[in-house]
């Protein structure tokens, strides 16, 4: 596979950069994130999270089921700041 391929499109992180992070010690999806920014963009890892987990499994030889996924946080999709201040969100 081409090492220049983008795994995280939001933050433009390549397969090679993710493999380097794993070799440097990352063993979780969040560990890769803190080293490369993969998963920090608009989609918050919804697309790349599973790809990153698979790369960690491949590189470390650990079962995919044991790779810790990213820690999910609110909001599920981007929400404009103004919405939080509205008395009636439907208005």
């Amino acid at each position, binding site marked *: 596979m081409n090492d220049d391929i983008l795994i995280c499109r939001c933050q433009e992180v390549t397969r090679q950069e993710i493999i380097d992070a794993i070799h440097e*010690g*990352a*063993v*979780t999806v*969040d*560990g890769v994130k*803190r*080293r490369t*920014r993969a998963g*920090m*963009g*608009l989609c*918050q890892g919804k697309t790349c999270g599973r790809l990153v987990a698979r790369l960690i499994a491949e590189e470390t030889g650990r079962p995919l089921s044991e790779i810790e996924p990213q820690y999910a*946080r*609110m*909001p599920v999709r*981007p*929400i*404009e*700041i*103004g919405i*939080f*201040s509205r008395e009636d969100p439907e208005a």
Partner: protein
Amino acid sequence: MKAMKDADVIIIGGGIMGCSIAWQLAKAGASVIVFERHDICSGSAGATDGVVGYHTKQPGPQMDLAVASIQMFPQLQKELGEQIEFDFTAGGLQPAEDELQWQILSEIAEKQRESGVDIRMIRTDEACALEPQLAHDIVGALYCPTSGKVNPMNLTMAFAGAARRHGAVFLTETEVTAILVKEGQAVGIRTSKGDFYADAVVNAAGSWAAQVAALPGAELPIPIVPKRGQLAVTEPVGFFMKATVQCALYNIIKFWPERVSDKRLLSLGASLSIEQTANGGMIIGCTRELVGFERHNSFEAMELITKRAMRFFPALEQVSVIRFFTGFRPTTPDGRPMLGEISRLPGFYMAAGHEGDGIALAPVTGKVLADLILEGHTDLNISAFDANRFF
């Protein structure tokens, strides 16, 4: 006869403190092993903003320590050889909403200036000229032109990388289960990967430092508790602001909580702290809550933080939050870190309890601990941070 040692120094905790100390020690020629339960930067340094400010420091010893630490930043960028996104021209602003806040900030600024830092009060026109997005219905602001910002994750990783290049070893996914003591002296640790011996053991476990100190062998009553800080990060936008901005309540809650009349604000420790990162996203916080290790976000805080951000930066209305997150601030009873050797357990050192100032104070903490361990003394006056002051 002394048992064969594995390293000169053992550091417990692979966060920003542990990595900074490891780098300073390894650079000075000491052999170091860092033990980390999870991963480098898996705690608070990966769950915070990057404010490196003078203006948010308690006047007195804490401010003096901040001055010594922040002066190290420009050199760090060069020495660590990695991009830490340090911007020391950002400046720090604290808008006041009324004359009372202006008065309180003026008093704080006057005391802070005693440490020799350029901190002054400016009126609304000047504040809004510096930050054009800032709401105009303020009465003025505290301004510190030399406060900066940094990427705390990059800084932690850069400390770790530089420490490794000097020979430091990092054992991650390794849990410490006991402190090994011989003839009243800390001589090593028991871990999930076996026993390790060294001349000195450093507790740099941040919000978890009390648990580490309470381990069998040490059993020290260290009064460090976590305070939850809630923050939001937005989508990246074009240039929005240069300074880091904390509302006046940030300092008032920190230094004079008795002057805050709103009980809800006080129990959440809620105030505004906002900065734009190099990536373009805005990091918006924050709260300081005593809720143990509960790491979820609360709706109450999410609403408060975003409302507070819009109150000072109305143009944020249409900018989207992509993630809320929390981090734990390791807090001591007097708000100051614990630095140095424990008298009743020689060989056991504390480097924890920095609360919300850990990023700014990490460089000097590394230097102070390395000097204390290798030279037996430090040139800085750290009596206010004595690790033995609580017992």
